[in-house]
């Protein structure tokens, strides 16, 4: 299973079943060069598979958010389950990152932003 996917300025993280410190460190290491070498216009955190998360996951998201947002990129969170939603809400992350119900909702905004022109 792919852990992340990059094409044409869009980076999608397919987050694991359990997003803890151990998993977060692996994801950071594996995707570091993509963030280094590319200008990310859209960064998407896909929580479809995720059933557990702790504050290490928040650290992963805010760290990546900062790097992409600082260069003008847009960041989204998608496919969030109830238990994960509770953690994300508590962390205050929705104040800076928009949550979308489905990927189609994100694609719609990307089209409106001129991504597919």
């Amino acid at each position, binding site marked *: 299973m792919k852990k992340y996917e990059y094409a044409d300025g869009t980076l999608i993280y397919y987050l694991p079943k359990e997003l803890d*410190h151990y998993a977060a460190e692996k994801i950071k290491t594996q995707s570091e060069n993509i963030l280094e070498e590319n200008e990310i216009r859209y960064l998407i955190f896909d929580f479809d598979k995720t059933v*557990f998360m*702790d*504050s*290490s996951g928040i650290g992963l998201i805010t760290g990546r958010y900062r790097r992409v947002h600082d260069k003008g990129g847009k960041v989204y969170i998608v496919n969030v389950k109830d*238990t994960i939603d509770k953690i994300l809400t508590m962390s205050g992350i929705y104040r800076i990152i928009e949550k979308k119900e489905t990927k189609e909702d994100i694609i719609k905004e990307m089209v409106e932003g001129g991504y597919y022109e």
Partner: protein
Amino acid sequence: MNNTNEMTVSFTSNAQNEGFARMVVAAFITGTNPTLEEVSDVKTAVSEAVTNSIIHGYGDKDGKVVINASVTGRSIYLEIIDYGKGIEDVKKAMEPMFTTRPDEERSGMGFSFMEAFMDRVEVVSKPDNGTVVKMWKEIGTVGRQFE
């Protein structure tokens, strides 16, 4: 007859064991008949405490993390213990967003999450003498609403 059920587990301070620690505590508290949400709350709190021991208590060194758990009726009591470098200023460490490692993208929310998900959290620590995190949770009561 004593109605308290107790469990102790000790493991190497390896990040791989964070998942193991959550699972073993979740399995142990099954007898309290918790909801899925309550199990999830306890797992998150355990994960935060164990991660702290591994990252901050031991850092690059190897050591042992010990979990003592006890269940009486529907009351859960947990201790997460390490013998690492300890915390100089516990009060400060427990402030939301406080982190000694912003460069490593630590959120600084560990203790806030423990306090939000458990009924009560106490931290006993001394520099070079390790840290004990004590946590209590009553299953079957509506927890405090956060935010």
